[in-house]
């Protein structure tokens, strides 16, 4: 790719989806958006496959001066993101053609895609944040697309968290930008060093960590994940779980002061949170009763493991290069597998004349990959473990980290088993349009093969170590399977609702519901009561507002001249007394 093509390709990658979305402005062209939408990710995919890192394009006119370009890490991110969007798009094609709101969906789809690609390619803070926001808010339209009750609830939770997240990110970015030399045109690359030197560095790190954590499913900020993954259309869920969750990860990678010394406490906090997510996600996930919820908690759990890696990076900056590779591989591996799993939940529902065996092999591949048995999984695990144990750089307390990760892998296996088991119940209910198969097949193949493309981006993992890691990878799988069998035989899942703690966080509905059930009041009555209470609170607020309004108007309306005169008199008298 030469010097002329590179900038064009960089511009086309986010530009094509954006341009397609803008076609909506012309009513006559609107019907053409639908067929074109799945292909919008192709320029990005081509760029990821054939582009060279290092090329940048400066867009002075954009925002307060933007810059886009690619680094080695972001190219990998671009690859799996584009691929997932492409496959999910292909998958959803037939499904959408029957939809009344196809055009609306496609516009949101394209905007989300543009945002996702934009944030990967952005080199400066403003464009990064812009793309991030674009993706976040456009995705809302995708999540609530079905307009079902569940989708609307998911959308509400998603939006509230997203807005909070955006606010936190903005706080962090402004504070961080101020710390850089050029607060009005800050580059992402300058942030880590600037944050490390900033006086408000803890505030900055907290804001950014939590802000991006909303996307990355940090514990207690994760509620939108299971709800959204469960309620959104399947291609959207695949994109959310595969691509967009990694935007949060990318956010951490580019903004947190990784590789800077002096953040051991933060490392500890992040690792601890990661472990909580890894185990908590697994524990809650196995109790879920729908495959997509299981997958959602699996994502939370997996992101917990990545968090551990991030935390390790903060704790031991010297491990940076190794951890960077590990995190990149992890991201690639998890994204593709998770996307394949999500698309699989749709595929399996369709009646088909193809041999069922192939279907289940296909469904099993990403599950195995996540459990750590496919090449990608193996490589991920060994690289991560290798990085964590390299040179005893990690603080003492974390010596058992590989073991803990292994234990978490048991949970992953159990989750996968649970997932496949639940999937079995949903098999063969609808007719499947062919496109659904294509997308799924594409992404499943990529799950297997994607990891072998790594050298393309200059990442040469230790393949042999991967092979050597098989024994290590086996015991969690075995243990997980045993656990699963045990659970299947003798345990009943707890009825943990998909948004788990959120139900507790809003204690009123839960408590009232419990209380009502205890005395035998039925559901609708409770709901009525709840709605009444909500209305009452709202009414009180409105009434307070009304009175304030009336008071302020009354205070001023009749007596405004006198009040102004009083102000004047006071000021004048004071003025004369001193002057």
């Amino acid at each position, binding site marked *: 790719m030469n010097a002329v093509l590179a900038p064009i390709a960089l511009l086309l990658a986010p530009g094509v989806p954006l341009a397609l979305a803008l076609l909506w402005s012309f009513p006559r062209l609107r019907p053409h958006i639908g067929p074109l939408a799945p292909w919008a990710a192709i320029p990005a995919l081509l760029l990821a496959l054939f582009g060279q890192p290092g090329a940048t394009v400066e867009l002075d006119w954009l925002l307060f001066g933007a810059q886009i370009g690619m680094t080695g890490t972001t190219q990998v991110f671009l690859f799996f993101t584009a691929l997932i969007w492409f496959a999910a798009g292909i998958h959803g094609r037939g499904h959408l053609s029957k939809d009344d709101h196809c055009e609306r969906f496609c516009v949101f789809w394209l905007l989300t895609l543009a945002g996702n690609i934009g944030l990967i390619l952005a080199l400066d803070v403003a464009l990064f944040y812009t793309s991030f926001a674009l993706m976040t808010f456009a995705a809302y339209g995708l999540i609530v697309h079905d307009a079902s009750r569940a989708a609307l609830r998911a959308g509400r939770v998603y939006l509230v968290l997203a807005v909070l997240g955006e606010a936190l990110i903005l706080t962090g970015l402004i504070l961080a930008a101020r710390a850089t030399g050029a607060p009005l045109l800050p580059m992402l690359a300058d942030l880590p060093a600037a944050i490390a030197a900033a006086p408000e560095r803890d505030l900055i790190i907290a804001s950014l960590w939590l802000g991006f954590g909303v996307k990355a499913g940090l514990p207690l900020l994760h509620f939108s994940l299971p709800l959204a993954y469960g309620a959104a259309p399947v291609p959207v869920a695949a994109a959310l779980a595969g691509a967009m969750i990694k935007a949060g990860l990318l956010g951490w990678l580019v903004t947190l002061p990784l590789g800077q010394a002096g953040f051991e406490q933060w490392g500890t906090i992040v690792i601890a949170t990661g472990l909580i997510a890894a185990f908590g996600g697994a524990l809650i996930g196995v109790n879920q009763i729908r495959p997509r919820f299981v997958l959602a908690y699996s994502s939370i759990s997996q992101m917990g493991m990545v968090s551990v890696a991030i935390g390790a990076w903060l704790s031991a900056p010297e491990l940076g290069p190794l951890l960077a590779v590990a995190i990149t591989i992890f991201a690639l591996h998890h994204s593709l597998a998770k996307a394949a799993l999500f698309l699989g939940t749709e595929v399996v529902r369709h009646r088909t004349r193809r041999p069922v065996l192939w279907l289940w092999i296909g469904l099993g591949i990403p599950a195995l990959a996540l459990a750590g048995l496919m090449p990608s999984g193996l490589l991920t695990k060994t690289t991560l473990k290798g990085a964590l144990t390299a040179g005893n750089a990690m603080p003492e307390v974390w010596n058992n980290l590989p073991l803990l990760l292994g234990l978490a892998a048991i949970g992953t296996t159990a989750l996968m088993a649970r997932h496949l088991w639940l999937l079995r119940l949903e098999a063969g209910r609808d007719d499947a349009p062919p496109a659904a198969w294509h997308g799924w097949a594409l992404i499943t193949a990529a799950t297997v093969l994607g990891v072998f493309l790594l050298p393309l981006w200059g990442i040469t993992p230790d393949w042999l170590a991967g092979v050597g890691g098989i024994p290590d990878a086996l015991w969690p799988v075995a243990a997980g399977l045993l656990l699963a069998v045990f659970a299947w035989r003798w345990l009943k899942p707890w009825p943990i609702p998909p948004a788990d703690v959120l139900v507790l966080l809003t204690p009123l509905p839960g408590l009232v519901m419990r209380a009502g059930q205890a005395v035998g009041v039925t559901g609708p009555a409770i709901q009525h009561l709840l709605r009444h209470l909500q209305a009452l609170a709202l009414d009180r607020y409105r009434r307070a507002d009304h009175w304030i309004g009336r008071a302020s108007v009354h205070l001023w309306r009749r007596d405004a*001249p*006198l009040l*102004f*005169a009083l102000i004047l*008199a006071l000021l*004048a008298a004071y*003025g004369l007394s001193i002057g």
Partner: protein
Amino acid sequence: MIGLWSVPLLFALPLSLGILSLLVVPAWRPRLIFIGLPLLVAASLDVLAGLATIGPHVYRLGDWAAPLGINLVVDGLAVGMILMTTLVTSLCALYAWVYLRDHPTSTTFFWPLLWFLWAGMNGIWLAEEIFNLYVGLEVMGLAAVGMVALRATPQALAAAMRYLLAALLGSLAYLLGVALLYGAYGTLSMAGLQEVAANNATTQVALALIILGLLLKTALFPLHAWLPPAHGGALTPVSALLSALVIKASFYILLRFWLVLGPEITPEFTAQFLGVLGAGAVFYGGWMAWRQHHLKQLVAYSTVAQIGYLFLFFPLVTNTGPEAQRLAWDGTLMMLIAHALAKAALFLSAGNLILAVGSPQISHLVGISRFRPMSLFSFGLAGVSLMGLPPSGGFTAKWLLLHSAILSGQWWWLIVLFLGGLLSAAYIFKVFRMSFREGPQIDRSVTPPLTLDVTALILASAAILIGLTAHLPLHWLRLGSVFGVS
């Protein structure tokens, strides 16, 4: 010599026209204005030209020496008043020419009275001796009373009677004061008094009588009771003339006296007291105006309020620095002229509105803005000046008075100006509020002749323009005044 022939003409001409109009048949009386107005306008402009070329001077009528001869002062103040009178009276006359077609009985005596009124006013502006001022006052006052009585309704007659009694009482008080002054100093000339007057009991009593009489004639609160019925109840052009000019005449005399005797002889207490009365007028008049239900009564009370501003002059020039005095002088004169123009415009446009809806009630103006935008626009422009909002003469005046008040450290007058402005906004917008209201009574309205609207609009525009070009009139007005040197 330029300027000479025109000075006596200023009152000789209206006098002879008045007599002439009594002699001709009633149908011809209105037409005399087409002879009289151009001549008087020319004479006024000539006087201005005279002032510009030879500066302030004293004109001796028939070259007779005082005290038996009559001396006429041609200084900036007098010429300013003359021009103001010419402008307002000419336009009111044009207005009346059309307006009175519907009031044939009133026409007969309106025109002679108008000429006498004009003569009386011009006499006052020019007179140098205090007794001549008295004569001017009487000529003007009697003509004014006659004009109020023109309507011949019981209310108008009662108002005229009340006005007459007040005017007579005021004149007699003034005359007694003049008598005392002459007895004590043997001179009637202002200039002479300024030289010889001493600060003793006689002077003070005389001055008090003169001030009281003039306050009554100026209708300063609380001596204002005669004004609203007289001004509010008269024919529209009469109301305009009375409110715009006639009350200014007595204030003008007061001003002249103060310039001659005031600062040295009257105690500061009097000045402050006059200011307080002015403040009372501003508040009371504004409040009452706001509470009126009749449009012209509202405007009349507005006059009561606006007179109050003029009296802020006295505290602001007594025992204050020269800069504050100059500003107060400028501000008061600006206020006087702006009020004359704006109030005439306000009365005329109010008359138009009343003609349009056929009712003097403010509540009947509902929706009138749709039909009579131009009348309302004139009303609004004049209102802007009365409220003291920019850009208008009223605003410039307020600016100068404020400046003077701050400079002299008398900040309490700020409150007066502040609340006065808001009160006037309240009553002006009361009319607007009604006119913008959409209601059932908006089906049709009578369209008054265009002349009526145009004259009102010219006056209102003049009230605005004089604020924008204030330095020109103020420059002329300062010629020959004690505060002329800045």
